[in-house]
């Protein structure tokens, strides 16, 4: 059966700008917003949009991602004619196996997978964006404008525009030019890295691009400019909802803090659930002397200390007299008695021993930043971790 649209999710990036948090895991499987991992957002968007076939392209430390996605059951993607598939690089006949050398090459190497489903269109997604988007609506616009490619775009400030891929749009509403990080932006429409391609056209461009030895095999740098140069029709799909790239420590922290506001992004809307795979834990116990204000908590926590403006994942322990402020605590972290965690991100199963201090409030100096501890780090009792520090697992605090 021919499918109208299938999705390919680019989850292969190392996420090197998340440093210690992606030391052992791929960026899409970094915990986010209490209950989730980053990849839950695009996967849930697919399921909610009626896209039931998703290829997940992985190559950097995929073990956790593989077991997390499993059969796709938490996202209702365990269907018989479709489903969610992990697609690592593999060896083909008469050639050496090779890594994905760019975003376009990753799709090129999986042409056979896509052909299995014989789709009319292919949705290309990133594994590091937090947003709720109805791809079915985008597909309707794509079909209505009869174009080779529809790119989701968002209005940004001129200052932000200098750091993003910008779409210059003509009077007819179609995109005539794509500029990566322009010094002098001529448009305020930034690409969100969400593309719907007509599959027949995309396949032709992927093959041509693969045969071009000078190409970087990248959608933004090679495929899209080539399509524009050939006069293909490109339509900008304007998206006005919440959308954040969480590729850096600061943006990851910021986006977590955004989850404290239901006006920015409402995760409680039953019509658009973001689903996740999470172990069953008893409800969170909040003790006699605990104080929790303006925060997110997840099941399995034991809170006896003070938690404010923070996001707590499952099974976090905050002991008596401990203080957690403006911080993101990933699953299984322990903050022992009298310890202070301020403006920090603590990776999975991090232990902050009694009386230790991690991070400080902003002081206006250039050196300030969010303090980060990677997974399984133990910060010894009494130790002080300064603002902006990056502690890797293996280092002892």
């Amino acid at each position, binding site marked *: 059966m021919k499918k109208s649209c299938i999705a390919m999710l680019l989850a292969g990036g190392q996420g090197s700008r998340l440093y210690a948090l992606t030391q052992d895991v791929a960026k899409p499987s970094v915990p986010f917003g209490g*209950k989730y991992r980053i990849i839950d957002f695009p996967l849930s968007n697919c399921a909610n949009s009626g896209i039931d076939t998703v290829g997940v392209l992985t190559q950097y430390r995929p073990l956790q991602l593989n077991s997390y996605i499993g059969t796709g*059951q*938490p996202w209702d993607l365990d269907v018989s004619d479709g489903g969610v598939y992990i697609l690592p690089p593999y060896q083909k006949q008469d050639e050496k196996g090779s890594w994905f050398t760019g975003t376009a090459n990753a799709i090129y190497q999986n042409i056979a997978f896509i052909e299995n489903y014989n789709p009319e269109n292919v949705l290309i997604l990133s594994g590091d964006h937090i947003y709720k988007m109805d791809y079915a609506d985008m597909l309707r616009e794509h079909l209505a404008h009869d174009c080779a490619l529809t790119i989701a775009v968002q209005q940004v400030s001129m200052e932000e525009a200098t750091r993003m891929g910008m779409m210059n749009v003509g009077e007819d509403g179609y995109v005539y030019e794509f500029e990566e990080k322009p010094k002098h932006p001529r448009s305020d429409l930034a690409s969100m890295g969400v593309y719907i391609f007509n599959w027949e056209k995309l396949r032709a461009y992927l093959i041509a691009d693969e045969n071009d030895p000078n190409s970087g095999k990248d959608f933004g740098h090679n495929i899209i400019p080539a399509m524009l140069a050939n006069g293909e029709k490109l339509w900008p799909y304007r998206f006005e909802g919440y959308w954040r790239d969480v590729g850096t420590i600061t943006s990851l922290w910021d986006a977590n803090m955004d989850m404290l506001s239901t006006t920015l992004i409402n995760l409680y809307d039953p019509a658009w659930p*973001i689903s996740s795979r999470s172990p*069953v834990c*008893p*409800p969170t116990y909040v003790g006699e002397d*605990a104080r929790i204000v303006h925060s997110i908590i997840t*099941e399995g926590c034991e809170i006896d200390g003070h938690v404010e403006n923070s996001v707590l994942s499952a099974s976090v322990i905050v002991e008596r007299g401990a203080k957690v402020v403006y911080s993101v605590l990933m699953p299984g972290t322990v903050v022992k008695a009298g310890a202070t965690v301020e403006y920090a991100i603590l990776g999975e199963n991090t232990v902050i021993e009694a009386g230790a201090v991690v991070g400080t409030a902003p002081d206006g100096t250039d050196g300030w930043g969010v303090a980060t501890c990677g997974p399984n780090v133990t910060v010894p009792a009494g130790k002080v971790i300064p603002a902006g520090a990056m502690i890797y697992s293996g280092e002892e605090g």
Partner: protein
Amino acid sequence: MSKYHGIIFAYSDAPELGDLTRERTVASLPFCGRYRLIDFALSSMKNAGITDVGVIMARDYQSLLDHIGSGKDWDMSRRSGGLRMLPPFGLPHAHSGNYAGTVEALNAVAPYIRDIPQDHIVLMLGSLLANIDLSAAIAQHEAGGAEITAICSEGSSVGVNHHYLVDDDGFVNGIHLYRGDSAKGLKSLEGYIIHKNVLLRMMDEAAARNHYAFHRHAMLNFLEDGGRMDVYRHEGYVCAIRNIEQYYRASMDMLDAEKRRQIFPTSRPVRTKTHEEVSSYLGEHAVIKNSLIADNCIIDGEIENCIVFSGCRIGAGTKLKNSIIMRGVTVGENAELSYVISDKYASFSDNTRLNGNAKLPMVVPKRAAI
């Protein structure tokens, strides 16, 4: 495949639970923020590697079916074997509508029992609140050489019906039926490890004599005929919930760290149906003390000594004390509730005042709007 097959009794109703079991069996009574009582029996079996399980039910089982589904949350959705829900195949006419006793329930599904491929069967109550280490019980059963091993508790266990007296060798030589909490002997948790043929023989004899009760008839006959019954002593919290006061007390007991650890040990996790959920948000005015809070809640009020299930909305200025608030309940602003058990999806408007009592908590039925 495990050598053991599980049978869970989920047919019992308890009139003393009133509105809480009007539309559900005791086994599907919501407990501790996100669970149903039957989760404990299902999880005990799953944690012992038993995934071929039959659940015997008689009536009011819609909520039970909805909760258990295919059994996939307990890894019991299997191509061969797995979970089987066993509704009545047809009761004798002029029947009360429920099984008069355990043997009658077993005989009603006798074809299923006969076709069980395993030689050994574990029987458990679907309404018992306990996290039983069935692997340890099975190991003891296999080492001991008795035909039946009964799962018992030595400690305080509320709501237990029967007691076992044991001889010097540790085998059961007497049963005290319906003597209440104060009776002597080991408290029966009505869980048994039994050879399939022994069980079938007991069922046949009972059917021939028109007997329906397991303990009063079948078990006493078994002992009189010289049958050997060993006991496995379960350590840890136990409650056989049969009335509202027991339900309330068992719920509040989960606020105690040690009791909570006994019911939810990390080595034997309790599984339940997973819902689409999101973390809970505690707002600017939230003050929470000594309470259990499940996921998907938005709370801006004051909560003390409460169990709050998933999906609740608690407005600013509202005070909840000593209460159990089940899934999807909405409480407006400036309301005050104490000693209330609110069933699912009830709603309380702004400024509502409701007070129950520790001995008689006020039960608000499912979907009630106050």
